[in-house]
């Protein structure tokens, strides 16, 4: 088990790729739940970027505090994502009850 370091640019590149896939899903899907799943993917890619920068700072002298803050920010992002998922899915249940569909193209009752 040799201790070969991973460059932080690899982690950031993975984060960028996942974020781009999430953007593609949000822009191209029309099912509300699929859009929501793409949003979760984008939130997670941001978490990955936080982790990469936290690890970068932890490798530098005196960076333990910064590494801790990066992990706590990921923790808070997960909490906010949980709240957002609960409210958003409740909205889709209400919408399905009202319109019988969660296709976002058919949801135009706010349009005059």
């Amino acid at each position, binding site marked *: *088990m*040799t*201790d*070969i*370091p*991973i*460059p*932080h*640019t*690899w*982690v*950031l*590149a*993975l*984060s960028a*790729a*996942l*974020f*781009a*896939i999430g*953007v*593609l899903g949000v*822009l*191209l*899907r*029309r*099912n509300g*739940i*699929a859009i*929501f*799943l*793409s949003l*979760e*993917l984008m939130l*997670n890619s941001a978490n990955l970027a936080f*982790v990469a920068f936290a*690890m*970068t*700072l*932890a*490798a530098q002298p005196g960076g*333990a505090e910064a*590494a*801790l803050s990066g*992990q*706590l920010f*990921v*923790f808070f992002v*997960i909490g*906010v994502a*949980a709240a*957002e*998922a*609960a*409210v958003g*899915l*409740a909205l889709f*249940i209400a919408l399905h*009850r009202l319109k019988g569909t969660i*296709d976002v193209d058919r949801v135009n009752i706010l349009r005059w």
Partner: protein
Amino acid sequence: MVPIVFAIAAFVAVVFAIVTIAHRSPVINVLSLVVVFFAMAAIFALLGMDFLAAIQIIVYSGAILVLFLFVIMLLNIRSVERLGSGRRMQALLGAVAAAGIGASALIAVSLLTPTSGAVYPGSLETGTVAPIGRALLTTHLFAFEFITLLLVAAIVGAVYLARREHR
């Protein structure tokens, strides 16, 4: 060893992220997102962040995505539209925008100096529960209490929005 594990996890994450946005069945979308989150938990564990790896699986895969599955089964959604079906122009513009965002992010990453930090796997002493819990209840106490308030508000709002009308 460690870069190989990272490469496998990254490959699995990207492949199943594409399945997540491209497959027609919503249940398969959610389950492949579970696979993506497990791969990301593997990367967190590889980088020495044990606590984050655990809550990634327990909270994200275990709670949030099960909530998604629950709603999909409650609403009885069987199959939905294909990725970018119907509207050619919108699909093209969306693909161009996503590719632009991804490419610019990758260029920004490649401009970072590689000497500024190599990530050393498993060498983080702040990755376990004890230092994180101590920081959460001392320096970040306000944010911690505030997020509990946010979760309570979200639960009350979700119950109110999803309730059945009684006439």
